[in-house]
């Protein structure tokens, strides 16, 4: 049976760029536990489709694409039952306590604001904050560069409007 190609390369790249996954998880989840679950789910999806990655796009662009797709389509937050509600709420609080200085407070504010955003809008916020160019955004989300520009401007306006009324 032949070896799966370059698994070492894969794990080296994943280790190096893991913050991309952490950022996606932070945007899409609210507790540490969900963060870990989504991180694991994306890693699995990345590994499973790695052999199809031909290097036409950057490894990191591909990571964004698979990560966002996983967060949007596959990942479902755990249903909260009455029993687990109090535990989860504690986790939310603990998760947010990590942000203590001014910059972190700003992030905390951001996460609260985007909590109600649609999954696509969350992806746009992530790509905007990560300073991605329109063609990379287009490639990541599978839309045209023109469409990416329109969507990006809309999300920028939405964010700055929120910041003004903060």
């Amino acid at each position: 049976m032949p070896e799966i190609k370059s698994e070492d390369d894969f794990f080296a790249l994943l280790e190096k760029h893991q913050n991309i996954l952490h950022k996606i998880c932070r945007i899409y989840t609210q507790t540490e536990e969900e963060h870990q679950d989504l991180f694991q789910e994306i890693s699995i999806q990345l590994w499973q489709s790695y052999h199809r990655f031909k290097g036409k796009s950057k490894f990191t662009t591909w990571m964004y694409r698979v990560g966002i797709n996983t967060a949007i389509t596959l990942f479902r937050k755990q249903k909260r039952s009455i029993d687990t509600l109090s535990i989860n709420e504690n986790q939310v609080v603990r998760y947010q306590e990590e942000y203590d200085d001014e910059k972190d407070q700003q992030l905390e504010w951001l996460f609260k604001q985007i909590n109600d955003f649609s999954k696509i809008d969350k992806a746009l916020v992530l790509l905007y904050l990560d300073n991605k160019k329109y063609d990379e955004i287009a490639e990541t989300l599978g839309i045209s560069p023109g469409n990416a520009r329109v969507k990006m401007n809309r999300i920028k306006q939405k964010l700055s409007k929120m910041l003004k009324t903060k």
Partner: protein
Amino acid sequence: MKELDHLKKAWENQTFEKQFSKEELYSLLQKKSARSVKWIFYLSVIEFALYLILPVFLPNYIDSFSYYKKLHLYRFSILTTALGYAVLIYFMYRFYKNYKKISFSTSVSSHLKDILNARKTVNQYFFINIGILIVFSVVVLMSAMEYDESLATVSNNGNTLVTLIAVLVVIVALIFLIFGLIYYLVYGRFLKALKENENELIENYSE
């Protein structure tokens, strides 16, 4: 716009306490499959326990053997029942071996090979079980037509015989459907995570 830049700066400077090493990332991938395979093993143990207590909850279970006796199928029914238990014990052992293997595999490629094997084992288990069940049902129904007086009179009539065969086909299809559905629901959810890996592998080998 200044606020947006501040926000971007804060975003850029955020840190993540938990940083995974290569080895930890590998074990992340491993854990999930190990969990699925572990549950497949547990389910087979539960299924075995259910088979063992089945006669207690089904009062007619023992009586059914005297009916098989009437159909001259006593030995056959004992043999198929024993075969059913033997198959289950054999697969319990295979599931356990798969679980152990997957928990301790040393590289991702060998890990995926183990996943492929684990999935194959469950499929074999499913088809062998369904096979035994269908053969058993068909043999019992055929004998019943010959030896069970209430059915034997019917089978002498040509038209009714066609209907009876049609009923037989429907029953076999129903067995396949019902048990297929049960196995799909019980084992299928644990196979889902493994299934995609298998497809990826097959695709990879054919390249």
